[in-house]
Each structure stands twice: as structure tokens, then as C-alpha cells.
């Protein structure tokens, strides 16, 4: 197992670096950089601009800048943010938690609803309740999440029931812990719902399909022939097999954890990495953009690896194949 992981990592690292190189080149291709905005300010002297150039190494050739960046990576130095004037690591750390919470909430919500729903739909296949669920699922699948977010914000504005975006109420600092938590949760609801509904529809469909596949297998018939109670047949024998393929999905969910929420964050004014990325891209804050992309790529690799390892652990057949 260890060798397998190592091999995957060895292949993955150049891919991640390749991706960052691509990003770097893209950011460099665009005419103009951060300094242009400063140059336009007549009060800033040539000296200061020269000083900035040196500090950010903008006078060196492109390739050298990139090598320098990669070199710094190994020292866990992610560069400096031009726009915020503090190290990139600090900028990201500030927003990381917010995005993480939102993604985690949406992930948990999605899986806790979709899996039971899918199982239930499979068990009541083709009855009217199943048909209803499939119908709504299809609609929700086609609803873009940003549209959902807008509609929810609209409803919120009409009913004054939920806050309209942002992460804190205006009086946040003065609230005690309990009220603060409630306030935070209330702000979390709309973005989480907008993110989750499409995923729930998709996941439910997959779960239902897997469950139906498994239920038609011989070993389910054999389990019943052994005299096992129906509950055990379904929730132990069937479910255990139906859920295996979903584990790979888990890995992909993990990869999309930080970037999936980006658009919704921007719409709901949730101060996370998504809105950060938007600002960074707009102001051509190179190192911030690269760091974000790097994180995305790394999470993707880790997520995939996680999915593969989990699958191997759960399905003995795969373990066996890999050994040989």
C-alpha cells in the first residue's frame, strides 16, 4: 500500500507543478501587472517603484521568477500579496476557515440527506414517491447553484426571515457566544442550501442506482435463502456493497472542497477563498492566485488518493489486484 501511494505521489507532483507553471505563464502573459496601478499615481516616485520591483523580483526574467517561487515552496514560503501587503500565507489563513466551514457544512448536509434518500427511493422503486423524488431530482440537477442562491436571497429579502448574505450580523462583536453561534448558523443556511441541493439530487440518483444494482445480485438472493432477516439483508449485505463506489466520490468531494463554493461565496458575500480569488485575479496579485491554484491542485491529488485508498480498504477485491 505504501509503495502504491508513493508511486502516485511521484506522478502527481510534476502534474501539480505543471499546473502552477501554466497559471504563472497565464498571469505573466497579460500585459500589465500590479505595479501599473501604482505607477498611475503621480505621487509615487520612480524610486519607490524601483524598490517594489526589486522586492517582488519583477525585474528578473519570467522563468527565474518561477523557479524562485518553486524554491520558496519548499521553505513553505508562498510569496507576498501585493494587494493586501501581507504574506500570502496570512491572507489565505484568514479566509481558509470560512470556506472550509461552508464546504464542510454543504458536504455533510448533502451526504446525510442524499444517502438515506437514495436508499429509500431504491427500496420503493417506481412507486409514486420514488417517481416524485426522481422528478424533483432532475429539476434540481438542472438548476444552476448560483440561480438557487439568487432565488433564496430574493425569498429572504421578502420574508425577512434569514439574513441576506455576509457572515456576521452587524452587531457581531457584542454578542455572547450562543447568540454568535446562532447568528453564524443563520448566515450559513442560504449558501449551504444553494450549494447542496444540486449535489443531493445527483448523489441520491447514484445511490439509488447502486442500490438497485446490488439488490439484483445473486448474493442478496443467497442471503435471503439463508433465512436472514430482511433488515440485515438490506442494510448489511446490500448497503455495504452499494456504498463502495461512492467512496471514490468522497475523494472528489474532498478535492472540490475549497473551490466548489467559490461562486456562491461571491454571490452571498461569504468572506472565503472564492471572493479572495476574485479579488486576486482582478488585481493581478500573482502569488495569491498561484497559491490558491496550488491548494486546489494539492487537494485534488490528496482527494483522489484518499478515494483510492478508502476503496481498497473497503473492497477486498481491489486490494488483491493491486498486490499482484
Amino acid at each position, binding site marked *: 500500500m505504501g509503495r502504491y501511494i508513493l508511486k502516485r505521489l511521484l*506522478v502527481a507532483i510534476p*502534474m*501539480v507543478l*505543471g*499546473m502552477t507553471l*501554466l*497559471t504563472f505563464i*497565464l*498571469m505573466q*502573459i*497579460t*500585459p*500589465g501587472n500590479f505595479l501599473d496601478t501604482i505607477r498611475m499615481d503621480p505621487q509615487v516616485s520612480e524610486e519607490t517603484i524601483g524598490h517594489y520591483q526589486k522586492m517582488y523580483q519583477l525585474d528578473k526574467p519570467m522563468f527565474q521568477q518561477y523557479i524562485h517561487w518553486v524554491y520558496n515552496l519548499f521553505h513553505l514560503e508562498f510569496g507576498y500579496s501585493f494587494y493586501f501587503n501581507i504574506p500570502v500565507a496570512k491572507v489565505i489563513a484568514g479566509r481558509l476557515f470560512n470556506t472550509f466551514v461552508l464546504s464542510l457544512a454543504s458536504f455533510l448536509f448533502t451526504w446525510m440527506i442524499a444517502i438515506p434518500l437514495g436508499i429509500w427511493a431504491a427500496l420503493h422503486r417506481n412507486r409514486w414517491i420514488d417517481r416524485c423524488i426522481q422528478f424533483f431530482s*432532475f*429539476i434540481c*440537477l*438542472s*438548476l*444552476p447553484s*448560483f*440561480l438557487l442562491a*439568487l*432565488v433564496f*436571497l*430574493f425569498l429572504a*429579502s*421578502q420574508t425577512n426571515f434569514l439574513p*441576506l*448574505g455576509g457572515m456576521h450580523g452587524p452587531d457581531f462583536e457584542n454578542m455572547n457566544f450562543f447568540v454568535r453561534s446562532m447568528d453564524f448558523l443563520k448566515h450559513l443556511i442560504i449558501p449551504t442550501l444553494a450549494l447542496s441541493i444540486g449535489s443531493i439530487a445527483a448523489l441520491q440518483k447514484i445511490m439509488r442506482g447502486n442500490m438497485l444494482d446490488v439488490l439484483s445480485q445473486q448474493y442478496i438472493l443467497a442471503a435471503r435463502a439463508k433465512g436472514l432477516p430482511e433488515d440485515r439483508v438490506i442494510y448489511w449485505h446490500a448497503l455495504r456493497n452499494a456504498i463502495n463506489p461512492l467512496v471514490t466520490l468522497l475523494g472528489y468531494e474532498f478535492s*472540490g472542497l*475549497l*473551490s*466548489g463554493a*467559490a*461562486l456562491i461565496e*461571491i*454571490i452571498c458575500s461569504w468572506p472565503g477563498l*472564492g471572493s479572495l*480569488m*476574485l479579488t486576486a*485575479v*482582478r488585481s*493581478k496579485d500573482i502569488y495569491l*492566485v498561484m497559491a*490558491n*491554484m496550488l491548494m*486546489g*491542485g494539492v487537494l*485534488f*491529488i490528496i482527494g483522489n488518493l484518499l478515494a483510492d485508498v478508502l476503496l481498497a480498504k473497503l473492497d477486498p477485491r481491489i486490494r488483491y489486484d493491486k498486490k499482484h
Partner: protein
Amino acid sequence: MTRNTEHVSEFQLALRSFKKNRLAVCCAMILFIFYAGAIFADFLSPYSYRNEDRNYSYCPPTPVRFFDEGKWVGPYIYGQTLTFNEFYRRVYQTDTTRRFPVRLFVQGDEYKLLGLIPSRLHLVGVQEGARLYLIGADSRGRDLWSRILYGAQISLSIGLIGVLISFSIGLIVGGVAGFYGGWIDNVLMRLCEMVMMVPGFYLLLALRAAVPDDFNSVQIYFAIVVILSFIGWAGLARIIRGMCLSLREREYVLAAKSLGLSDFKIILRHILPHTVSYSIAAVMLSIPGYILGESALSLIGLGIQDPYASWGNLLSDNMSIVRIKFAPWILWPGVFIFLTVISFNIIGDTLRDCLDPMMKAERK
């Protein structure tokens, strides 16, 4: 008794069973209507997309009346004037003294039909003095209905052009990778994975940032198309590569090889035609991605810019919370996006289902 057997391709068979599915046909008709609306947007809309009148900012939909004091008089509207109430909110007073009949085939803003023929003919309209807002006005008093029709031109075409480019690239990459296998396949698939590895939205933003700021709207349009294609080709390439890999082992390919046909001819004449049917289904299912990608970009201001309309940037008005509450009609473009996406999804799904039994039978 002799039977006449027609020679039908896989695709035609699938098309036949497709036609039997009423829902799918319905969706196809919806899309047809949308695209027709986009092509003839100039004629169908009462006003040009640029036609603004700040006196009618955020004017609610104008109610079209048919009866005056119980008598049928045909469709007409009243004039509206903008006033502010005590909370500085907009209130529109209706002026019931004068009727403005709603006429068909009126003369209105100038345009060029299909880009060539100058004309001033519009399907519906009213005289000067009142403005017909079928679903409301935006911040500058521009008719939202007209802008939705014009917006269709951009939103719907980006989907088609983008997918065309992606598909071409994907076809070549996937075809070569699937056909040759080995290290070529390996390298190409790693490349695909690298592109797919990047979080989609981030890549979208980063690529958009690479576009110079001084691009005009047309250039931005093409830049967006290129960006979306750049993200999308990898997925299609993988699908095609998978199909090619399995087709490669078929007997007729071996037969063609033994006859000495060049690789290129084999790919072109024997393998690719079989991928067509399944590819079309895959293409239908990926078009929504492009439409949504453009909408997302325009929504946050990085896509199509004012004064041009796209469904995405029409929605960006909604980003201000105050406006959502008092001008909810701004959400209408979203309905159109949704209908388009769901129609493509239904058509793609149905097409794939129709092809499946045939794929399964072939594999045996």
C-alpha cells in the same frame, strides 16, 4: 414474401426512438423557439437593447389592458410617471387619461435584420409617450424583455461555438490517444488530467485575468469562448478516447488494417463514425456547462460587459440586495437559463438512453 430492409445507421435508429419520447421532443421545441427568438431578436423585441430612458428606472411590468369601462377596445397601456414616496422609494403613478394602443408590426428602433438588411419593423410596440415593459425595466429603464431576447444571442451561441471548439480538440486528442494506446495515450491522458485537476472556477478566473483589459466586447466574447473551450475539451477527450479504445479491438478495424489502410483513414472512416452517436449525446449534455460558465462569469462582472446583454450579466443586477427586494423581475433571465439547461439535459439524457440498448447489443 420479400421484405424491404432499409439501411439505417445507429444514429437514425436512435433518432426514431427519440421522437417517440414526448418530453424530449417538447424540449427540442423549446430550444428551437429560444434559438429562433435569438436570431430574430431585433424584430421580436419592442426596443433595442440600448434603448434607455432613465425616467423609467426599475419600472415594474406594464399591465396590458383589454377593456375600458367594460367595453372591449383591444390591447392598450397607460403611461407611467416616476415619483418617489416618503421613504425615497420609487413609485410609478399610472396616468389613466390617455390610452396607448399596443400595435403589431410597428416602426421602432433601427436595426439590421440578420446583420444585413436595415429595417425598423418590430413585432409589437407602442407610440411615443409611453413605454411597454412586458416584464419590467432595469436600472437604466431598458426593457428587460428586449434585453433577454438579445441576451439569448450571446448566451446560446457561446454554448454552441464553445462546444464545437472543445469537441474538435477532444475528438483529435481522444481519437489519437484511444487509437494508438501505449505511451501516447498515457501522455495525452496525463495532460487531460492536469487540465481537469484544476478547480474549474479558479481556472476560469485565472484565464479571464489573462485577457487584456482593453479588449472590446467582441474580443471579450471570443476570449470567453476560447476559455470555456479550454476547460471543456479534456472531459470530451476522455470520453472519446474510451470509445476509441474499445472500438479499436473490433474486427472490422483489424480487417481494415490487414487490408493496408493507413491509420488516418482507419480512424476517419471506421472508428469515428461509430463515436458520432454517443458523442452527440455527450455534447448535448455538456452545452449547459458552457452556458452556465458564461453566465457565472458575467454574473460577477468578468464576462460580457454593458451595454451588451447576456443572460448572465442581466442577472448581475441581482447582486445588490436592495434591488432584489423591490425589482424581482430581474430574476427572469434565470428562468430562461434554467429552461435552456434542463432542455439540453433532457435531450442529452434521452438520446443517450436511446443509444444505450444499441451499444449494449453491439457489445455482445
